[in-house]
């Protein structure tokens, strides 16, 4: 069926879901980590490590879902390591994050060497577009259960942070470590747990890349998506539900470049491919103000202190 210009809209819709899902997981992980007062720049490494672990386990066990779980666990270990190192006095979490990023990618490349060639079992997809008789739309609405899980996690995480005592503790630790200590809260332990959970989510995001879309383990797989997710959290103002919308927006924007070329807009593709970044810059500039501080920013973050 001829779709012509509708193809762009379909590609952006499909791309929002396909490309946005790993962004969603990594940004949710980073959101939780930053709420506890730490920045984990190492999530890029966690993402790549998760992708490698997921692919390898799926290949050996034959079960892609076991791969996803192990990817999460690998991410949790890296997150816990980051947080444990940062819990020492005068250790800078930005520096440790960069080290963890290099460590994570390096380790994944080292261990992942034998997995570039073989094809692992893929995560199954769910047909949400069965009602449509436009094959392009049906294909765009073929989604993965991880996307739905991501939506549930975004809603739940927002609710937990707002309404539960665990969420309150995380926020207190993120707002003021001194106040938290005065309340008798174990600051380091809460941060380690939050960062490990954040790493768990980022690891799952990585396994989505290697086990579902684009479904491939290679060393060029991530191309900075873990780092972009860190900026995405600021963009989403540290709100889990906003992370969902922003991830979808970025996914859709990333799909715009190729789809415009497919309908014959052949000029300026470098600019179109840069739209997610241009968009971020634009929103940052529009929403900044010298008269008020950012809403929702955890005050313990090294960048805001």
């Amino acid at each position, binding site marked *: *069926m*001829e*779709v*012509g210009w509708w*193809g762009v809209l*379909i*590609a952006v819709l*499909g*791309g929002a879901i*396909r*490309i946005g899902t790993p962004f969603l997981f990594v940004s949710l992980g980073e959101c939780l980590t930053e709420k506890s007062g730490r920045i984990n720049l190492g999530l890029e490494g966690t993402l790549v490590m998760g992708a490698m672990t997921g692919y390898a386990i799926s290949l050996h066990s034959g079960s892609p879902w076991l791969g996803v779980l192990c990817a999460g666990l690998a991410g949790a270990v890296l997150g816990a390591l980051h947080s444990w190192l940062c819990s020492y006095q005068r250790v800078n979490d930005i520096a440790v994050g960069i080290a963890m990023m290099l460590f994570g990618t390096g380790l994944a490349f080292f261990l992942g*060497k034998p997995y*570039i*060639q073989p*094809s692992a079992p893929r995560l199954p997809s769910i047909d949400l577009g069965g009602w449509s008789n436009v094959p*392009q739309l049906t*294909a*765009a609405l073929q989604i993965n259960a991880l996307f739905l899980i991501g939506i549930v996690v975004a809603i739940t995480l927002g609710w937990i942070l707002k309404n539960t005592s665990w969420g309150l503790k995380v926020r207190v630790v993120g707002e003021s470590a001194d106040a938290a200590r005065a309340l008798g809260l174990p600051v380091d332990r809460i941060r380690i747990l939050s960062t490990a959970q954040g790493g768990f989510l980022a690891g799952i995001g990585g396994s989505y*890349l290697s086990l579902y*879309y*684009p*479904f*491939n383990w*290679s*060393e*060029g*797989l991530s*191309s900075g*998506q873990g780092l972009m997710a860190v900026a995405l959290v600021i963009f989403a103002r540290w709100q889990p539900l906003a992370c969902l919308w922003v991830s979808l927006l970025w996914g859709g924007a*990333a*799909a715009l*470049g*190729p*789809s415009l*070329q*497919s*309908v*014959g807009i*052949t*000029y*300026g*593709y*470098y600019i179109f*491919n840069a739209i997610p970044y241009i968009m971020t810059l634009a929103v940052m500039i529009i929403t900044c103000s010298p008269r008020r501080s950012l809403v929702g920013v955890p005050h313990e973050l090294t960048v805001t202190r």
Partner: protein
Amino acid sequence: MAASRKLTRRQVLKGTAAAGALGMLGGLDWVGQVWGAQDKVKMGFIFVGPRDDYGYNQAHFEGKSAVAKLDWVKAFDEEKVPETIEVQKTMESMIKLDGAQVLFPTSFGYFDPHILKVAPQFPNILFLHCGGLYQEGKHPKNVGSYFGYIDEAQYVAGIVAGGMTKSGKLGFVAAKPIPQVLRNINNYTLGARSIRPNCTTNVIFTGDWSLPVREAEATNSLVDQGIDVITCHVDSPKVVMTTAEKRGIYCTGYHCNQAKLAPRGYLTGAEWNWAKIYMDYADMIRKGQKVPNLVRGGLKEGLVRVADYNKVVTDSVRKQADAAKAKFMSGAMIVYKGPIKDNTGRDVIPAGKQYVQTDIWLESMDWLVEGVIGSTKS
């Protein structure tokens, strides 16, 4: 930092001294005379990506592995060497620590400035670059280049694609609009249009050699627009092939064989056969012959090949593809024979004019042939 700078200066001095000494001996003739023939031929290979990427680097690594099997050759390689000062360090260490006599830096971006900087320091080492950048007279004498006319194999693959498409729309995921890529796109399209004149090829440039997510997106967008055969020119075709297979369309491969990734839809593919050229080089060096600075070749010379056809390819399509292959093998095929228009309507090759495969004019191609939907402008 200071230490490494000191070392470099010393290297430069050494290099110039050696060049002077050799120059006095009269002429900078080749390594075969410098090294005794009884020693093993030591060959160093440098790859920009992983050895097993189902693509460009794997094709070279397969060539290296073939030559390494010879008992009179010692071959070593390093993978994932970026196109920066890193490759200069790798070249130096391969020469000094491994005793390489000949280096094969295989990536396009290694040439300028990296090979051009290191080569003059080691005048009796051969630097053979894969690509079309070497120019006689302009570049050092111990530098050379080799490349295969893989576009010949793309022409044959284009015939298969043109014969198997139902919609008459082909797709091409390309990295950057450089001459070698454009030549592949044009040959693919000309091949397809030779048996189906109204066929079109829709091109998407991703902007870089390895961007798996964008390559998958490009493939999906093309399928949405109704293309039903796809090929690519990126470092690792893996993602394009698996995505095409998932969307249920045909694909033709590139670099090396990806039939395993898409058993249902992989029609054929354009592949390198570097083993041939590396064997030839090793042989020339062992025998002490002068290594030519420029080596080119296509299907006839065995530098490239067409992958086996999938069983779904019909007999009549096979016949037409095989006929074109035979013409390439006999040297009778001339792809760029006027009249040829580009896709803006300009006459690029007027009627009566023709460019044979070896014509250097074709190596600076900056246009897309009629029938291609896409633009070389970024």
